[in-house]
């Protein structure tokens, strides 16, 4: 039955884009290899056939040029979706995506909004080395004026992307190459829109709050199961969007558990994780039994060697250790 339909993360992304393009002629997709190649990661497979080359647009390897093109088009009233093959490649488009898109509304005194979605793979792929393994949320979430969504499951991927496309502000949409093949339940034919700024409790628990988003949500759930056997009952909150940040859900949970572990796959210095920890300290100061513990990627460039990369990334073992320390069970 359709109610139990399971599809891959990439299919969910495609469904979101396809449905929104059918619904609104202003929406189009552009990026490297999105059309004839059917998408470097097959996210846009078949979309050229349905929408034609005017709306599914192959670009040369020219991020600064086509990201800027999308912003100009958005100022003129269109709603572009820009696919970065990897967010690592967006660095050469830093000026348009950071200096133009998030500031246009402000600098024009409310005249020109920038309803554009930038999406693509973020984070370590699998032994890609340092230049291709960026977690851009660390740097980019620093900029006011943009919104940032990081889905963890196929249903959220679809619902958040549809919301992103309809949003009037620029949205940075971060996917993970390692999750594109993940299957999950996504209801068919329903108008699913996941609101921004609303976290999702993935697992309820009484002893420790684990706040995270994106791929590490799965590591946190794995850790929570292991810790349950030790008698530590964790609540796992998937924040889903970094801007806006649903601090309210985390605070409500921490007031209950008195301890908090933040898991963030970007570097620790000046990151969404450090911001979240600071906000929890501010709002929950008198409720905390220990300082907020954090699990990040190691503070080094991403290595190539398999074992080093595993050690570099957050994982269930590191989360278990952090939770034990935070709850005085170490």
């Amino acid at each position: 039955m359709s109610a139990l339909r399971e599809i891959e993360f990439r299919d969910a992304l495609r469904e979101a884009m396809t449905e929104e393009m059918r619904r609104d002629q202003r929406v189009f997709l552009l990026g490297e290899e999105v059309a004839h190649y059917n998408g470097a990661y097959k996210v846009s497979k078949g979309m050229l056939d349905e929408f034609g080359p005017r709306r599914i647009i192959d670009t040369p390897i020219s991020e600064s040029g086509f990201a800027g093109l999308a912003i100009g088009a958005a100022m003129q009233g269109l709603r572009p979706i820009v696919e970065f093959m990897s967010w690592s490649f967006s660095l050469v488009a830093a000026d348009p995506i950071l200096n133009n898109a998030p500031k246009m509304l402000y600098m024009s005194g409310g005249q020109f909004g920038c309803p554009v979605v930038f999406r693509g793979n973020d984070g370590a792929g699998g032994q890609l080395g340092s230049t291709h393994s960026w977690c851009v949320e660390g740097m980019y979430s620093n900029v006011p004026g943009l919104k940032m969504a990081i889905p963890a499951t196929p249903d959220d991927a679809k619902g958040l992307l549809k919301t992103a496309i309809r949003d009037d502000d620029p949205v940075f949409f971060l996917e993970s190459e390692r999750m594109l093949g993940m299957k999950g339940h996504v209801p068919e034919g329903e108008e699913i829109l996941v609101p921004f700024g609303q976290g999702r409790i993935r697992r309820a628990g009484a002893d420790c709050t684990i706040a995270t988003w994106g791929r590490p949500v799965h590591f946190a759930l794995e850790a929570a199961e292991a810790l349950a056997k030790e008698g530590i009952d964790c609540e796992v909150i998937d924040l889903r969007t970094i801007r806006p940040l649903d601090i309210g859900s985390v605070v409500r949970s921490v007031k209950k558990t008195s301890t908090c572990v933040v898991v963030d796959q970007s570097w620790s210095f000046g990151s969404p994780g450090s911001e979240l920890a600071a906000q929890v300290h501010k709002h929950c100061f008198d409720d905390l039994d220990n300082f907020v513990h954090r699990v990040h990627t190691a503070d080094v460039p991403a290595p190539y060697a398999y074992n080093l990369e595993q050690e570099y990334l957050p994982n269930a073992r590191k989360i278990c250790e952090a939770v034990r320390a935070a709850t005085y069970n170490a």
Partner: protein
Amino acid sequence: MSTPSTDTRRLFDVHRGAGAPRLASDRTPPPPATLKKWLRDMMLIREFELRCMQAYQDKKIGGFCHVYIGQEAVAVGCVAATKPEDPLVTAYRDHGHALARGMTARACMAEMFGRIDGCAKGKGGSMHMFDKPNNMFGGHGIVGAQTPLGLGLAFATKYEDEVMQNGRNKRVTLCFLGDGALNQGALHEAMNLAGLMDIPVVFVVENNGYSMGTSIHRGTTMAHDLKSKAIGYGIDAAVVEGMDVLECYWGMKQVVDDARERSRPWFIDLRCYRYKGHSMSDPRKYRTRDEEEAWESDDPIGKLERYMLENGVVTESETKDMWKDVKAEVRDCVAFADASPMPEAGELYTDVYMEPWGPYPGSSRPTFMGGAPNTPSFTAIDPKGEVL
């Protein structure tokens, strides 16, 4: 006595790709009313910029201030060659384009002063003039950054024609840049994409010979023939005279009409000169007084005024009245800007997002557009997500 402006030293020099049709050259002088409008627009820009310099020196204007004196014929001639619905985007020396496009001197000066009645509520400043009703998509402060945006504006007009309304509008985008931007990567990516995708955008290089204090020969290869930059991208290119509004208009008209007709990009080496420094703190030691005087003696306003006098379009007393009128208008805009309040502290948080959330109350239009709130077309943030 004086040289007729049709006898220019710098000829319209054009490079076409193979198989392109001949340009339709039409050198008919515009009707008197049009000439009078151009003259007044140029006078307005000149006087406006002078008073900006004064206000800057009086500390009424902050930050950086780049004035357009000397280049007035470029903005006025180029705008005259386009339709009001054609998008226009430029760099940071942008007051002239804004005024030529129809922004009121009041909204422009109030923006310079950082006041609430400025075109961007005092949040943009000298380098960021936006005027949506007049399709002015900004001054932009980062050299070259506006070139991919100009490409995108033109892409959107083409997309609207081809995907949404069957070729109804055929708009052309004017994307201005200075000669300094020739050396930025963004321009080259934009030109490649424009050539590749048949985008109707005209990249107008306002070639005033200097990027800040670096003369074009010290910063750019092939400075003697900038057209060569475009030829490599399959883009048609031309040299257009920028110190004579008639020549500028006649040259640009052919280019803009061709871009519109064939949906193709163009690249223009528009020769001009800024009389003043790069910004207000530039002592201009990198060029000689003789060079400046030679250009100033070729002044575009004086040239058009003489042409109109000799052809009986205006009398001397009429031009005197025009100056008086323009001075009064600029005096008024300075007084207006001075009286306009500074933005209230709460404005700090408005216009960051269309949609209200957290500390951000949403967005509204500036006062010159009526000030009504911008209503997001879709509310995506769940109110329950609110902090505490």
